[in-house]
């Protein structure tokens, strides 16, 4: 497995996209830290970038990479190599390279400018979101042979989780505002990894008071030890489930 990961890693580095991505994150983070001396506000602005950019870049880059390495996958399949090993090696190398880019681009400046609990949460949620969207991209990639279709599906995932789902959630809350919705919204939020990451962040930024009673309930639920465990567990499911399904499909796929 290590040998295969090495070759895929080498291939990813050669496209230079990862380097550009690292550079972009690095410049954006440092610029934000230069603009404002209040770490809390910087983390808040960074959070908005992270919640939009990380899922988009992870999902699109992974899909394009998967289709570009079709030749490599085909070559490996005629060799004495396990299919599962090929697939998981692709996953590990892609996820690892995106995570390293994020750690250098966002993590490094944060450590240099001072670590707070909220900045650690930002690093953590960014890494989890990267893994979630790489998993979703792998699932989309094995579902279809057509690269354009797969990229379309992944963009749809992104639109759904970062825009459409929030709209639906707001509509539900608005329509049923006469009923106690706190528990229901916790359940609904768990269905969207980006929302989950956003709430984990907001609670660490101590601005949950702005969200009224629901904010207090969230603070009570997500702020506790069990809440942390719950959100980590749900995010892990978002990583493992698409990856598991993708592996199952890939093992039985005709190439």
């Amino acid at each position, binding site marked *: 497995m290590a040998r295969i990961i090495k070759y895929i890693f080498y*291939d990813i580095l050669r496209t230079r996209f990862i380097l550009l991505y690292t550079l972009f994150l690095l410049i954006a983070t440092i610029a934000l830290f230069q603009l404002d001396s209040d770490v809390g506000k910087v983390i808040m602005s960074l959070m908005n970038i992270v919640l939009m950019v990380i899922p988009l870049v992870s999902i699109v880059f992974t899909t394009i990479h998967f289709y570009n390495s079709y030749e490599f996958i085909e070559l490996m399949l005629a060799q*004495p190599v*396990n299919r599962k090993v090929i697939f998981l090696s692709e996953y590990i190398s892609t996820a690892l390279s995106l995570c390293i880019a994020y750690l250098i681009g966002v993590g490094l400046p944060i450590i240099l400018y001072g670590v707070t609990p909220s900045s650690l949460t930002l690093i953590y949620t960014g890494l989890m979101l990267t893994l979630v969207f790489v998993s979703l991209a792998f699932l989309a990639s094995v579902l279809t042979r057509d690269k354009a279709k797969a990229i379309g599906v992944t963009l749809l995932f992104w639109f759904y989780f970062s825009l459409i789902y929030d709209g639906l959630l707001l509509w539900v809350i608005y329509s049923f505002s006469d009923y106690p919705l706190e528990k229901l919204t916790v359940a609904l939020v768990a269905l969207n990894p980006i929302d989950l990451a956003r709430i984990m962040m907001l609670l660490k930024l101590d601005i949950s008071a702005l969200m009224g009673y629901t904010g207090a309930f969230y603070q009570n639920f997500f702020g506790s030890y069990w809440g942390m465990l719950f959100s980590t567990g749900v995010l892990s499911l978002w990583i493992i489930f698409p990856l598991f399904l993708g592996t199952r499909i890939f093992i039985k*796929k*005709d*190439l």
Partner: protein
Amino acid sequence: MIVLKKVNKHFGKLLALDQVDITMDAGKSYALIGPNGSGKTTLIKSILGMVIPSSGEIIVDNENIKNHWKYRDKIGYMPQIGRYPENMRIGQIIDMMKNIRRNIKDTDEELIQAFNLSKILDKRMHALSGGTRQKVSAALAFLFHAPILILDEPTAGLDPVSVEILKEKILKEKDKGKLIMISSHILSDLDELSTDIVYLFEGKIQYNNTIANLKEETQEERLGKAMAAYINQNALQHTLQD
């Protein structure tokens, strides 16, 4: 050495392989022929585990290949269209394959020498012509002394000198007692290289016997004519649908 039992493969509604039963033994060379789209490549890819049969069993060297992968180090495969990571160099690809097949120290580099590939090891794959790609594919197929060689249209796109080099190499390996399977449309090549013939038509095996037998049955000297006579006798042409 390779046994297929009632292998079926559907692609949607299309039946690409229809109850294929065949036994192939070491020391023989099988010519796999049939019209375009008759299932030759599907059959080859099923043996390699790249295509998973809808039903039936494939046994390679007494081992059912379902969910197995180790058996593939007994196979050297030359694809019809060699697809390689475009920005890798020839040398890197060869090193990578050696690395993946681990613990093999004594590799067969005869074809790398004969095709003069050692002079262009630093060329990137996207810069290669179709023929040079074929040479790389051929060199990789023979690299590991595999006891089973599966060659999918090996001579297509090669220049006449290289075709002769490759044919000589195939004959040499055949004499070492390897199982060789060649799919091709060039029957004159197969006449020299093969001992047995497998004729595939619409996913079914229509003929499976030695070439000598076929020639005797049809009273023809050359494989090309014998095959044409056989096809005409049995009305195995594609009929145009109106």
